[in-house]
Structures are given as C-alpha cells and as structure tokens.
C-alpha cells in the first residue's frame, strides 16, 4: 500500500568512479546553499514586526462588561468546569446594595484568576459561558520574569470601561 506520494525507492548500488570523487556532488551542494543565500529570509523581526494573525485567533482572555459597563460574569463556575487544563479559579460574592452599577446580576466573581501557563487557549471557557462574559481575544500573553505574574487576576482580565476590547469576530 502506498502511504504517501513523496516516498522514494532507496537504491544501494555501488558508486561509480566519478561519484566517488565527490567533487561534482560537493559543487552541486555549494550551488544549493548559495541559492539560499539570496532567498527571502523567513525571520520575522518580532518586537518590531508581528506576524499577521487571523481574526478568530485564540489569545489572551477578556472578561466582558455590558453596554452600561457592568461586569457580565456571575461566577457560575461553568468555565472552570469546562476548562481541560484547570487553569481557571474563582470565588463568588453577593452583590450588595449600591453596587448595581458594577455587576449585572446578584452574584459576581470576587476573584477570578486564569493561570496563563496552564491555559491551552482551547476556547472551551468561552463556549461554556452562559452570560457572554469570557472571550478569547487576538492579543498575546506578554512575557514575564516571574511565574507568579502569569496568574492573571481580575485587574488584568476585566476590560476597562473606557477601553473596550472588540470581540465581534469571535461572536460570529
């Protein structure tokens, strides 16, 4: 059975005299390497140039707010249950009087942490979320010196009121 059309039959015939000189083969090899000298380079100069990413790229998460700026998350825990890498932890709290402009429903997440080193960016949390609260975005997780800094809390995850993050392509 032929598994691939790239397979080559290996021949073990003796080398001829001219092949044993190796010089023609070496010249050929030099030709191949020098042709690469003038080829387009594959390097992307990362900090200055970023590789284009698709619109539905699954990158760093965001916790969304609604139109009035209230947090959508109700700390139901479905994302944590769905998470195959067990990267998400949260603690729930009850909304007090006077906090209606902060949280959409009576329950909210007092702490919400995602360990970016555990996360595999599969997007199951976003599928599990019944409140449209968590989304993956096209942003990258930035490098850190300390492992602790990769545990993102609410301060990094919740979008800023005056700096909303566009997740329209992922909502389709």
């Amino acid at each position: 059975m032929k598994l691939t059309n790239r397979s080559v039959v290996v021949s073990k015939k003796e080398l001829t005299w001219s092949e044993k000189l190796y010089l023609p083969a070496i010249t050929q090899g030099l030709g191949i390497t020098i042709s690469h000298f003038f080829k387009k380079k594959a390097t992307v100069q990362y900090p200055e140039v970023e590789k284009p990413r698709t619109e539905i790229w699954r990158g760093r998460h965001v916790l969304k707010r609604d139109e009035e700026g209230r947090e959508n998350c109700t700390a139901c825990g479905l994302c944590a249950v769905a998470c195959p890498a067990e990267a998400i932890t949260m603690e729930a709290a009850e909304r007090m009087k006077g906090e209606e402009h902060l949280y959409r429903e009576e329950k909210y997440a007092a702490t919400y942490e995602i360990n970016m080193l555990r996360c595999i960016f599969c997007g199951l949390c976003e599928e599990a979320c019944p409140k449209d609260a968590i989304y993956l975005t096209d942003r990258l997780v930035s490098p850190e010196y300390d492992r602790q800094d990769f545990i993102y809390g609410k301060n990094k995850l919740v979008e800023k009121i005056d700096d909303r993050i566009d997740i329209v392509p992922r909502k389709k």
Partner: protein
Amino acid sequence: MEWLPIIDKSVLILIIFLISLGIAAYSTYAERKVAAFLQDRIGPNRAGPFGLLQPIADGVKMFMKEEIIPSAADKFLFMLGPCIFMMTALMTSAVIPWGKPLDIGGYQMNLQVADINIGVLYIVATASVGVYGIMLGGWASNNKFSLLGAVRASSQMISYELAMGLSIIGVLLISNSLSLSDIVKGQEGFHWNIIYQPLGFLIFLICAFAECNRAPFDLAECETELVGGYHTEYSSMKLGMFLFAEYVNMFISSALIVCLFFGGYNFPGIDNLDLPQNVASIISVVIFFAKTFFFIFFFMWIRWTIPRFRYDQLMKLGWQILLPLSIFNVVATAAWLTFVK
C-alpha cells in the same frame, strides 16, 4: 638612514597585526551572518547597525566571564597553550606579500614584513608549531575529553601537513623559488598557478580546511561528539584566544591560497593601465584583500554545505588519497617541466 627600515617594518608589523586581529574579529561576525543567510535567517542585527558591533559585544562578554583554571591542571602549560596557538597564527603573516611596494618620498616601502628566501618553508614550519598549542592545552587540562580532543586534533593536523607540504612542491617547481614574493611576481598577468596546478590547488585547499580545524574537518571540537574538544576546560579569554586564533588561521590560510595559486596581488590587465606607483600599490592591496575575503567566505560556505567526516574517513582521505595524489602531482609536474617545457 639606517633607522628608516626599522621604523618602516615596525609600522608595517603593527598595521598587519591590527588588520589580522580586526579581520579575525569580523570573521566571527561574518561567519554568523553567512551561516544565517545560508539558512534563510537574518543573523545578528541588534548590536549596532546591521549588528556590526557584535564582535565587540562578544569580546566584552568573553572578558567578563569567570577565569577558571582546573586545580589538577598544569598551570604553566595551561596558560602556554592558547599563547602558542595565537602566536603561531599571527607569526605566519610575516612573510605574506600584501601588495606592490609603496613609494614614500623616494623610499621604497616593501609591503611585506620579511622577504625571506625560505618563506614557504617558514609558513609550513610555523603552522606545525601551532599543533603544540592545541596539544599542550588539551594535555595540561588534565581532563580525558580534552586529551582526546587534543589527540584527535594533532593527529589530524600532522596527517594533513604532509599532503599540504607536498602539494606546495608543485608550485615551487614552477616558480623556482621558496620566497613568497618571487612566487607572486612569477604569476603576473594571468599566469596564476591555479591554471598549471589545479590538482595541487585542490589538495592544498582540502589540507587548509583540515589545518584550520574547519568543517568538514572540525573533528577536534565537534560539539555533537566530544564535550568541547581540546578546549573543554578553558574559559574566559583563554577560550577566546583559541577560538580567535582559528579565525586568524583562516585569514592567513586564505591569504596563502591567494599568494600560492591565485596570483597574490596580481590582476590581469592592471599593469597595462600605467598607473602611478602608489595608486598601483594601493589597488594591488585591495585586489589581494578582495581575493582573500572571497576565500574566507568560501571557508564559511563550505562549512554550511558539507557534513563532518567520520574519523576513519578523515584518516583514509588524508593518508590513502591526498598523500598519493600529491606525490603524483609532484612527479607529474617535475616530468612536465623536464620533458615538455
């Protein structure tokens, strides 16, 4: 007036010393750039424009590293190893004619430090002393991996020196002289020795690769097989000296190949232009360095093309193929000179 030659030679020695070191330093940069380009990468480009300050950054790094001498090592020989290697590498440049004489106010400044009549012999002899640097370094480290690396390196260099010496004899027979300046003068116009000695050139080129411990003959320090070869125990600038001396060797070998086989500073048609002496002299130096740089590039080009030899293949190539071929080359050249010419 008798002070003039001394000043002249001192200035020349200083310039050649600085040029050799400068070219060796920038060879490390060029090596990384060429390697990158041949592998579809860009190479160092962060330190300075196009990464041109990279050799300086590397040098500073080498100096800042901790200096370690193993407690069981023979301290004197341990220090002597890199010194000898570096010294012999630099000494070889003394007999290379870099260009036509300059005319400074009536004084003829010969662009060659020592025009001795045994120039080729001097180079072969100095290059052989370089083996002591490697051998002493490896042995004095008191480490079995260093010793193995040193034994590999020295047996390789000794094996290839034979074929190298014999391949030069063909050139010597044609030019009738051991002096490098005479050999270069004999190749005026397009009478380059490569035309008369293609086989000799090929053998010399292969042996030059082996003498410089360059790929495909870099068995002395093959990272994938030995820990680090003869310089396993070396650190800081002593390691730097070993690595640096290899690039000096590469530069001198390229210059030697140009002198022996590619007409040195000669270029066809340059004598017909009737240029003033000093202009012709500077142009000849430029031509010489252009040819030399091509061969330095060729060294790097080969390195990223051909995989490393196995040790038995290396010895077989040296003793069973190159040595008989070079003897055949000597006999054939001698017969041609006696019976045909």
